[in-house]
């Protein structure tokens, strides 16, 4: 690079940061640092893939939902998640990458999705626990992201957050109903919380000091609150909800800290966290296989549409 272009680059970066600091939203046509773009593509696509892969553990119970009302609610909920995936892929596409490329990155393992979905949904209570805890944690994160610096991402979050609170409530309502039910139902509910509590806390990612992308993301205001802040917020709100329905959270260190004005809680098992992210969760391979096989089985349908559109075009040309 010449001296001139270096200076221009520095100036562009400075102007960019000034806009961020002034809380301006960055839009697709605006100049942005290459790293900002890459960072966003990574985060938005990971978010999109999470919505889509998250359809699997919940989809696993649609045909088995115990009442028609619960079935309809769960169907609508999983359908929302698919819609969220679509908004987010569209937001990522504004950064110059195609949905097909994003899906390829998911299939190759280059792109990640929320590790929580590598845990299995084993009983009906898991659907309650996922709605209550997993959507609950997702909302805390997404509410914060409504203020993210990239316009299309922020607007996508606003739309998504409107739908999310219903997700959390339906899950909590399932848990509440189970806790008011038979001994076997209460046991089922407690077991689900025992399995999903810690993975839900892991959803916020590593401690701030350990987080690979955090500092830069905060400067660029892609992230607005740190992993640990968001995790604390989630713990504080969830402990109270658990008390209301009489379910216990599997952490002996969980207690109110008057001085901090927050609940203290135990240390996450980071070995487990890394193990699951790196492929040894109960369902990592299954989740990916499922997505790949649906994508491959759908190839002939997508080809048929393309062929039909091409033929239609030809016929129109001939007629003209």
């Amino acid at each position, binding site marked *: 690079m010449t001296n001139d272009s270096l200076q221009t680059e520095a100036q562009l970066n400075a102007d960019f940061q000034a806009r961020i600091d002034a809380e301006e939203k960055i839009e697709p046509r605006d100049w942005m640092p290459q790293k900002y773009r890459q960072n966003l593509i990574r985060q938005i696509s990971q978010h999109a893939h999470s919505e*889509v892969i998250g*359809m*699997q553990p919940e*989809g696993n119970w*649609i*045909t*088995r*939902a*115990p*009442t*028609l*009302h*619960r*079935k*309809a609610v769960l*169907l*609508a909920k*999983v*359908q929302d998640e*698919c*819609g969220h*995936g*679509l908004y987010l*892929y569209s937001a990522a596409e504004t950064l110059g990458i195609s949905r097909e490329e994003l899906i390829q990155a998911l299939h190759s393992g280059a792109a990640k999705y929320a590790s929580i979905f590598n845990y299995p949904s084993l009983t*009906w209570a898991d659907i309650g626990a996922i709605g209550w805890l997993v959507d609950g944690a997702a909302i805390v994160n997404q509410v914060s992201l409504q203020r993210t610096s990239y316009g299309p991402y922020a607007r996508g979050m606003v739309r998504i957050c409107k739908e999310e609170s219903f997700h959390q409530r339906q899950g909590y309502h*399932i848990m509440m*109903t*189970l806790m*008011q*039910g*038979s001994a*076997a*139902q209460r046991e089922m509910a407690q077991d689900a919380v025992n399995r999903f509590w810690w993975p839900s806390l892991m959803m916020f990612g590593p401690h701030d000091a350990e987080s690979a992308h955090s500092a830069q993301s905060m400067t660029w205001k892609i992230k607005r609150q740190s992993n640990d802040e968001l995790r604390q917020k989630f713990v504080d709100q969830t402990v109270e909800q658990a008390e209301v329905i009489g379910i216990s959270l599997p952490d002996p260190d969980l207690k109110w800290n008057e001085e901090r004005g927050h609940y203290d809680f135990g240390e996450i098992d980071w070995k487990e966290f890394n193990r699951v992210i790196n492929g040894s969760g109960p369902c990592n391979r299954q989740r990916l296989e*499922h*997505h790949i096989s*649906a994508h491959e*089985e*759908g*190839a*002939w*349908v*997508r*080809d*048929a*549409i393309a*062929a*039909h559109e091409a*033929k*239609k075009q030809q016929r129109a040309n001939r007629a003209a």
Partner: protein
Amino acid sequence: MDNDLTQATADYAVRLGDDALILGHRLSEWCSRGPFMEEDLALTNVALDYIGRARMFLGYAAQLRGGECTEDTLAYQRDCREFTNLLINELPRGDFAFTMVRQYLLDEHSLLFLDQLGRSSDSELAAIAGKAIKESRYHQRRSREWMLRLGDGTEESQRRLQNALDDLWGYTPELFLMDELETALYELGIAVDRAALQAPWQAAVHSVFSETAVTVPSGGWEVVGGRTGYHTEHLGHLLSDLQFVQRAYPGCQW
């Protein structure tokens, strides 16, 4: 309504509810397995409409039957022989062509059927039909478009479409079959005369497929039995899935 008539109307509503429930179940199996996301969303949406329809019909039947009967006891506590859905609804989802051909054939049928049911002297059935037909209009626009796309598309899509149509065809005569119950209710202005729907249905289906490369089968086989609980082997498996939780933990609230 006298008691016999009330029970007959309830049985009729159960039939219509079973049709919707079982088809909705098959459609819901596509969730997270669609050929692309927009279609995944659309299939789930149609499934949701059918589950909603099932709840309206079964809820009404439960109300007529009275006692402990609810939409859920009807859906979750009957065995294979007591289910009265038409067989076409219970066939496994197959590939995307099979699902969409079934949907198209049923959508054309629903438009005709619900239009008539909307005129039923039973105001509750008429109201359900009035709501459902709006959904079916939208379903039919979509499934018809899929017939045209797949029937034009590629050699593979044409082949799959033809296979699906051939495999489904023998289950369509049952859509137009009247029995004692439905004939009696028809004469009272409550039920639809299914037999009268066959000619306009054939015309609609032939007209759409004539725009494609596939041939409408000329008949030669027909399987019936759904209304008398004489099902395919597939239904039992579907029920073991649908009813698992309630069967494993009887007598609970969910």
